[in-house]
């Protein structure tokens, strides 16, 4: 076993073990959590980058380039594996990168305290485990670790509202994970194995009663993940959870938790069950596409009528994940790559947007769409980055939001799924509706003291420094420790630039994901 084979295990174990350090040090020192977390996430990010150079540097089929760690040295049918293939490495990069970037926000703005950072590290460890696990039962365990971390972080908000939102998420999320566990049970009955690579070899050979069991397993697994990915009508936990979580936590859970769940669904659909199995199951593709398409429309419509910005962006997530799930159901190569690009892109955009919401709430006290009036003149950096990310969300080229949607649309047309193509068009219009509302408020509505809480708005109008000064003095009138820092704005601007720059990287994504997509054995586009 060479040293790189250890990396997948270290990436999972190190954050979970390090999660105990802030609490232990907290007995003696007050504020060590941030430093410990920063050191750990830098190490994790460096490890993932090194892993990525190995995985993407090698050539061959998906299993040949993958870095596989066999826990305890037990080989495949018996042992448990951690697999970093081309797809999971990409998601691991997103997870560690976002976790690292977000620390710039939580340094000053987020919920502080050592227990918060313990939860943070636990969540990152769980997410990396969920990304790289090669065992369907271990996926359940990591799903629950991610769940536990998320519930704890959501409830770390100041108000009691966050506890109610966390309990709602806990009950719905546990039922979702349990339904997935039933699916695992059926799959085990049908095949007698839990390893994904073994399952992928066994599932196509199933016949008779075992085939029926595997189909039941697919149904349970899909419903379980439909809850975790927040598909309509099982999405009701998500807006509450996103809205009531502390500002420093929402970017993490919005960008990562549902994204990694959606990745896990892709892993199960395309690696474990395989495209042939899903295509041969009656009504399976139709149902997956319908659930996704209905989520797109329902999420967008609900987002348009929201007044709270965080809630609006939460409903927008329902719609974007609907697009991804619908693209899974199309079962074409182009649509799958589009869905995976959109998965990464959406994670990036939502992380940036929720950081922007946090920055605005910190420095400006604004939470509803109306309160965003005149933001552009008093907070040019925050408003500018937010505007770029919002436009990216609509899917205007060049941006990562555009190429994701573009490939999904092309895949829909190739699969002759005209409804999906129409839904993408309709949802883009609806996205533009709620994005334009916010842009109009930020750039074209003058701020008035009445619309701003705490009456701070007046000062911005004759502030000589605004726009020209350093980002620290960028309209920062709030007193106390909770101020908008250079780090926050820096992360925000970097995210916005990245969201645009990756818009030119469509071919790169195609190339990097090629081994995985080939292993999924899909219909090749004409």
């Amino acid at each position: 076993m060479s040293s790189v084979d250890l990396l997948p295990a270290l990436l999972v174990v190190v954050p979970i073990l390090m999660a105990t350090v802030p609490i232990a040090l907290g007995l003696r020192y007050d504020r060590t959590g941030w430093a410990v977390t920063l050191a750990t996430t830098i190490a994790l990010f460096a490890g993932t980058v090194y892993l990525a150079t190995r995985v993407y540097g090698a050539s061959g089929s998906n299993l040949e380039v993958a870095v596989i760690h066999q826990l305890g040295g037990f080989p495949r049918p018996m042992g448990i594996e951690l697999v970093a293939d081309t797809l999971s490495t990409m998601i691991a990069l997103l997870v560690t990168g976002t976790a690292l970037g977000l620390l710039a926000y939580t340094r000053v703005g987020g919920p502080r305290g050592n227990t918060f950072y313990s939860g943070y590290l636990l969540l990152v460890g769980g997410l990396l485990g969920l990304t790289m696990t090669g065992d369907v039962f271990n996926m359940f365990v990591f799903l629950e670790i991610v769940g536990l971390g998320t519930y704890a972080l959501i409830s770390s908000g100041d108000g009691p509202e966050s506890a109610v939102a966390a309990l709602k998420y806990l009950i719905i999320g546990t039922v979702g994970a349990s339904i997935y566990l039933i699916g695992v049970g059926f799959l085990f009955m049908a095949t007698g194995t839990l390893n994904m690579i073994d399952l992928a070899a066994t599932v196509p050979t199933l016949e008779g009663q075992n085939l029926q069991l595997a189909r039941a397993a697919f149904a349970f697994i899909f419903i379980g993940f439909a809850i975790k990915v927040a598909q309509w009508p099982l999405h009701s936990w998500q807006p509450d959870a996103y809205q009531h979580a502390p500002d420093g936590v929402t970017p993490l859970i919005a960008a990562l938790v549902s994204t990694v769940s959606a990745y896990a669904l892709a892993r199960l659909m395309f690696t474990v069950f395989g495209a042939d199995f899903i295509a041969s199951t009656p009504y399976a593709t139709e149902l997956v596409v319908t659930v996704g398409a209905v989520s797109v429309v329902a999420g967008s419509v609900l987002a348009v009528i929201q007044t709270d910005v965080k809630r609006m962006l939460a409903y927008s997530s329902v719609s974007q994940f609907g697009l991804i799930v619908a693209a899974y159901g199309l079962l074409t190569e182009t649509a799958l790559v589009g869905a995976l690009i959109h998965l990464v892109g959406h994670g990036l955009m939502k992380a940036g947007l929720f950081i922007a919401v946090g920055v605005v709430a910190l420095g400006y006290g604004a939470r509803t769409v109306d309160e965003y009036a005149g933001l552009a003149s008093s907070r040019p950096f925050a408003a500018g980055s937010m505007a770029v990310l919002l436009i990216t969300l609509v899917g205007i080229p060049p941006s990562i939001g555009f190429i994701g949607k573009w490939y999904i649309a092309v895949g829909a047309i190739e699969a002759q799924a005209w409804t999906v193509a129409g839904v993408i068009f309709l949802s883009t219009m609806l996205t533009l509706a709620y994005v334009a509302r916010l842009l109009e408020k930020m750039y074209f509505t003058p701020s008035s003291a009445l619309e701003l809480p705490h009456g701070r708005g007046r000062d911005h109008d004759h502030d000589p420094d605004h726009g020209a000064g350093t980002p620290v003095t960028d309209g920062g009138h709030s007193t106390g420790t909770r101020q908008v820092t250079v780090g926050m704005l820096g992360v925000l601007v970097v995210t916005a630039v990245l969201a645009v720059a990756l818009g030119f990287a469509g071919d790169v994504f195609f190339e990097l994901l090629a081994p995985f997509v080939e292993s999924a054995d899909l219909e090749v586009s004409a």
Partner: protein
Amino acid sequence: MIELLGTHYAYALMFVLLGIGLYMTIASENLVKKLIGVNLFQTAIFLFFVAVAYVEGGGSPVVPADPDPGSSELLLASPLPHVIVLTAIVVGIALTAVGLALIVRIHSEYGTLREDTLREVRADE
């Protein structure tokens, strides 16, 4: 049909328990009872896994100290589902603990455990 139920009663029981658990989770207004419903739902799944692994006349998969030299066959129950259930029970306990902690927080803030009262209290704010 009756015969099938007679031999597969554990599966039937699992789905009955699953239904009761889900109904409690959805219909009960009391938050603690909701959590008990979730627990019941999970326990039904544990029962399902145990039933899958059951082998008529099978022993535990521990190699006997003094194996009977006469019989060449050793009938064993699969240990894997049992291990899975053990892990899932641990996960379930952790979730219940977190859920109860959240309920304690909600009760100390709002002074109620009932969801309908909670909705009224929150609507007033």
